[in-house]
């Protein structure tokens, strides 16, 4: 049984994405004891799956390197991966969290040498690449994963593959006897940073995500463009591997829609413009991009980016929510709709359509371990009745990375306020 020292002066951070990491690090770097719980086998969350950030077009791994270094060297921070908070009882200043730890089947002796992955044979859809590639049953989730330890897919446990992995390991790092564990942990305050998930594009039926190979989501497109992604950064379409030079981006795919998500997801306009630059970088003059939008939301200083992108004559902005997509005989998705400015009816074939899918809170309204004030979009509102539980980042609203980190920094202070009160009361 894993032992984690925690008291009512400990801050529990649920979720190890950019928001959770930021909150945990800011609190730990102020000298507070922090336990960071992450459901995936590694930290970093969804930003690890992005190729570039808007508006600087810089690489998420750059900031991640710093955050990982901060994490590795901070003595006040304990990280639990493959862990989920299943229960939370108590009140502000004294909570007890129940944490379920899934087995990794690989212990801390792992040197990330990769021999186990070479040894095993079964392949699985790589969730890190949204299924655009395969991974082995023993795998490092992605190259920069922290902790830099392999994981065995639970599906290979009990099969010959598991034994092969174990036999291949020179460091005695594979432990097939690992079992799920449950841990109880005390803490004074909780930062809830469970983030978001992409809206299920298949639910937007007229766009045929589930019917047309060449209709993909914005998160998938990030993997496609990533030089370290499944295609080595080649922007090709799934159906036939043809270079996708003419691409439609459809905004509000699921957002601002009473049939799907009520809210505006805030990031998608900027994300599509960013992705348009990927296409320009790849194909220069041959690139042809249509961005179909309702309102272009490049808020505050982001307007500079819009101005820059708009200046490129190969990127067109069409004020229109497309009505449907059909595939022509060559597998080209044809986007149908009406340009509301001037009423031009279009039926435009593209190589690829990218749906700018909305951000949905990752935790279902009904699945929170204790009662919190949640709005009907599913985000946690800041409210006194939440006691010592503070939302950070996209658990609180649809936010971009910068705003998430900002919000998480604030959440760290809110937790520290509780801890300091508890500490003063204890003296």
């Amino acid at each position: 049984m894993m032992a984690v020292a925690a008291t009512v002066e400990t801050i529990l951070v649920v979720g190890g994405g950019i928001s959770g990491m930021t909150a945990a690090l800011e609190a730990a770097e102020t000298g507070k004891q922090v336990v960071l719980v992450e459901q995936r086998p590694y930290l970093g969350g969804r930003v690890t799956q992005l190729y570039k950030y808007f508006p600087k077009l810089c690489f998420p791994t750059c900031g991640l390197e710093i955050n990982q270094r901060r994490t590795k060297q901070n003595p006040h921070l304990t990280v639990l991966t493959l862990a989920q908070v299943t229960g939370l009882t108590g009140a502000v200043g004294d909570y007890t969290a129940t944490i379920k730890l899934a087995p990794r089947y690989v212990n801390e002796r792992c040197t990330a040498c990769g021999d186990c992955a070479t040894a095993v044979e079964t392949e699985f859809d790589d969730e890190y690449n949204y299924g655009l590639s395969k991974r082995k049953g023993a795998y490092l989730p992605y190259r920069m994963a922290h902790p830099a330890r392999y994981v065995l897919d639970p599906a290979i446990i009990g099969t010959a593959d598991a034994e092969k992995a174990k036999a291949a390991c020179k460091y005695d790092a594979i432990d097939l006897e690992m079992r799920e564990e449950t841990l109880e942990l005390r803490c004074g305050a909780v930062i809830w940073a469970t983030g978001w998930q992409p809206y299920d594009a298949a639910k937007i039926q007229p766009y045929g995500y589930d019917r047309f190979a060449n209709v993909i989501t914005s998160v998938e497109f990030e993997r496609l463009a990533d030089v370290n992604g499944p295609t080595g950064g080649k922007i090709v379409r799934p159906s036939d591997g043809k270079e996708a030079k003419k691409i439609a981006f459809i905004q509000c795919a699921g957002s601002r829609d009473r049939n799907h998500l009520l809210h505006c997801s805030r990031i998608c306009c900027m994300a599509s413009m960013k992705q348009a630059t990927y296409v320009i970088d790849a194909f220069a003059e041959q690139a042809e991009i249509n961005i179909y939008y309702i309102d272009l939301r490049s808020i505050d200083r982001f307007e500079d980016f819009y101005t820059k992108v708009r200046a490129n004559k190969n990127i067109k902005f069409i004020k229109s929510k497309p009505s449907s997509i059909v595939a022509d005989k060559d597998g080209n998705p044809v986007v149908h709709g009406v340009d509301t400015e001037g009423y031009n009816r279009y039926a435009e074939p593209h190589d690829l359509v990218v749906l700018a899918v909305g951000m949905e809170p990752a935790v279902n309204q009904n699945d929170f371990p204790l009662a919190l004030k949640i709005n009907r979009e599913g985000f946690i509102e800041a409210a006194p009745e939440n006691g010592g539980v503070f939302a950070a980042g996209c658990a609180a609203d649809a936010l971009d990375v910068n705003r998430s980190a900002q919000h998480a920094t604030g959440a760290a202070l809110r937790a520290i306020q509780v801890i300091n009160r508890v500490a003063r009361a204890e003296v």
Partner: protein
Amino acid sequence: MGDMSKNYRLNFLKEVEANVEEGEWVKMCMQCGVCSGSCPLGKFWNHPPQEIFMMIRAGKREEVLTSNAMWMCTSCYNCIVRCPRELPITHIMHGLAHYAKRLGLIPQQQPTAKFAQLFWNNLSNKGRVNELKLGVKLYFMNGIGEGFKTSLKMKDIGMGMMKTKRMNPLEIVGGHGLEDIKGFQAMLKKAQELEDQRIATPRP
């Protein structure tokens, strides 16, 4: 440009809210255009629904009420299912048509409006649609010459229908109807009363 004093005034929007079925939804449109793109007959209209809604908000009363737009709706409901604001667009369009008719503003020679009237007259007579009579009326709607021309064009289909007993030529005299026609007509009368009452007392 004409008189612009009523531009972007609420008068017409409020008139629509008061008189058009589901009219209170018009203001909720956010001009995304998905309805216009979704309409299978969109390209045959003067103004697709989204534009109609903006025109209502811009106070373009005459243009809206005399438009052929709402007469072209085939009730496919594509727009309703796709509207991100869940506007009951089909119903609003029919509501607008109904209101335009009440005001006597149906566009001249609007075939769908004529058909609608023929259909109603046909149906309300005996409580059943007499397809033969309806067909004949429809063909001769625009005069005798055209009526014969259309009839000749459709004769093969007509013969086929008779052969397969889908159409009874005897229907041209009398035709079938409900058993309790009196009761049916009483119901229609009551409905008309209710409708008149509704129109007479505009909604708040």
